């Protein structure tokens, strides 16, 4: 790091903002990709069930949407970071250290969002199978994918706390 600093890393214009925005972009990107894959997979399974029995649409739609929340969490963190950095209007002067911290803060929801959405989609697909055969077990079928989401929520929590914590630091 010293090497970089000596070679003038802190002289690069707006490096802090760049790093912070990279974090925000990653959060929206990766969590969004995960959710898109997840909702897509669940949608395929859902469409299969609908060909047999279209009256299950309401229940199956809920199951299809479950892996979609990670994308929203990613968006949330991205937006929060951008507001704190001041990209959306306001003063965006940021030291590179602080920018890097924002980037770190965004990583939990970016990575966990991507992986958990895909894992949750697998559980969703299986649960759609349950509803296809036993629609009365919808309550239980819904809980199984929701269990996976817990970890996305924990990651979201850490990212949230970290972003709001970093913004109150003075570096």
């Amino acid at each position, binding site marked *: 790091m010293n090497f970089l600093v000596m070679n003038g890393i802190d002289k690069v214009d707006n490096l802090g903002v760049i790093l912070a925005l990279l974090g925000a972009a990653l959060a929206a990107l990766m969590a969004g990709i995960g959710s898109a894959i997840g909702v897509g997979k669940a949608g395929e399974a859902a469409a299969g069930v609908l060909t047999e029995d279209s009256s299950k649409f309401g229940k199956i739609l809920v199951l299809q949407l479950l892996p979609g929340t990670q994308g929203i969490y990613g968006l949330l963190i991205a937006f929060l970071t951008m507001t704190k950095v001041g990209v959306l209007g306001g003063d965006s002067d940021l030291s590179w250290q602080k920018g890097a911290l924002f980037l770190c803060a965004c990583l939990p929801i970016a990575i966990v969002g991507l992986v958990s959405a895909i894992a949750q989609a697998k559980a969703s697909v299986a649960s759609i199978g349950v509803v296809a055969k036993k629609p009365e077990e919808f309550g239980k079928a819904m809980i199984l994918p929701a269990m996976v989401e817990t970890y996305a929520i924990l990651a*979201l929590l850490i990212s949230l706390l970290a972003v709001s914590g970093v913004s109150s630091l003075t570096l």
Partner: protein
Amino acid sequence: MSVLNMQRIQLCALKRNRKKLLTALQRCGVMEVTDVGTEDSMFDFHKQPEAENLVAEDMQIAKEALQVIDTYGSKKTKVSSLTGRKALTTEKYEAYEIEYNHIKERALRITQLARLITEEVQENRKRKAQLEALVPWITLTIPFSCTETNCTAVFFGTLPNAWEKSNIENLFSSSSATEKNILVEVISSSKLMTYIMVICLKQQAVEVHSILRDASFSQKISNSKLPPRKEKEKLEEEILISEDKISEYIDLIKEYEQYQEEFQFLFDDAQVRLEQCEVMKHLIETEKVFVVSGYIPKAEIAKTVKSLQEKCDVAIEIMDPSEEEEVPILLKNPAFSKPLEGTVKAYSLPGKGEIDPTTVMSFFYYVLFGLMLADAAYGAIMVLGCTFALLKYKNMENSLKNSLKMFLYCGVSTMFWGVMFGSYFGDMVDVVSETFFGSRISIPPLWFFPVNEPMKMLVFSMLFGVVHIYTGLAMKLYQCIKQKDYKSVLYDVILWYIVLTASIVLLLSVDVFTKTFGLNFQFSKQVGDIALVIVLVSSIGIILTAGRESRNPVKRLLKGLYGFYGITGYLSDVLSYSRLLALGLASGVICTVINKMASMVGGGIIGVIAFILIFLVGHAINIGINALGAYVHTNRLQYVEFFGKFYNGGGREFRPFTMRTKYYKLDKGER
């Protein structure tokens, strides 16, 4: 509030009153019929499979008739659960029953018409295929049936790929037949197929045919006696006639549309009789009398007995169910909690000796939902929407009514927490006042802004979780006392209460913990030490007692350790409530995003229009997604964190002998 007390009931009556009695019983709709016992020298099971077949047939006819009206008629026959089923009085029902034979005839007639239509449609499809096949042959002037004359043989057929006339004639150059004796006519040709007619002398027919076959000729066999052009005209005329017939049939069907209600009655009546057939299988009879037995909620006995005895002479015996019987479960809760019975049912109904968790759960359910959505405006939308639907469609089906009521109460809670946390469409008031009126106005929260103080919200969420979990343990306590399992009260509940409470006190006396969470109070060191001792002592208590079913001391110790390992479960349970913060913030922050996007266009007329558009679409999506999230995660917190402490379920649902009709309400209402 509770699982209803069920009694065993046994009815004995004369066989000639059977229909009357069963119908009365079905109208009461409060008794579940089960097997009386086994056959013996005196009693036989009731056997009458033909009756069931007849009913099934009626049902099929009615179903088909309604389908026909759905397909060809202008009205919809399905009943939406919003408008609900129409009530049908007993008198009207009986009036219909007299008409039964006519109704059935009409239903049969309409299904017959539909069948005729299907036949015509199929015929037309065939005719159209034939027409298609005739197109390439249209210039042919002789019919296909003309395969020979006195001296010549005629071949019609196709060769693959495109052929010139001369190429075909060349095929025969090596044969004994000279060109003069063969006439080749190309009727039409395309890239894929050449349609030809070949005429030759009869004695050469075999040879010519084999040459053609070598060139992959496939002969067209048809017994049509008209030349293709005439044949085509004939087919077209037939199609026209048949289409006329179809529209005539459809007109006839439309005339039958007025009888739709009768067909619906026929279906429901068959359904009612089918239920009766099901029940008949359970009753036993002698030559003159029959016995039917089952379960009935204690509160309903007096009324049912009275209404049955009004109908006919019947001997009724009531008794307590024996210990080993698996009694069906029916829940009874106050109106406030009733909508959540379905949620409990979706998990599992209370098993033997378990209490009904619905009422206690309902308070937490509404509060948790409200905390996760936490927006006054969203709550108001839910309340208004549900109230409107409930008032407008008074006749809606119970299941839908319960869901709407549930969301109504959830909406009230959402409003409450929205006001507490100062969220009205997020920060809509601030944004609108700043963008369009120049000065920023904020509505202050009654309590605090979670976005500004996430740590405070996190602590509150977990505190709420602790309360929820403690309530779960209290439910277990109550359940154990009810089952007179006093050992469990001490070992499985009270010891845990002590460990958990002491652990919390211990944590609150540690600097690092209180600083991290920004708490402004802390227990002193001495209190912490005392708490530590209590934790250790009660932990040893748990380790020694958790494995008390095992006699083997080693096994007992291991099981005890495993039991104590459950403390990690409590830790993760409490952490799980952090989703209250996460989801609450999620809906709040997305509101902010939407408002910000909406206000980016700026002031002025265009700004206002853009604002309204983005605002409507954005918040509609947000309320949908976040209400779904709140619903799913509220369920999870109840099922996993709360039920996990005391509830196993496994009860069997009470299924009374009643009228499960599709189109009409025949009894006083369904259960």
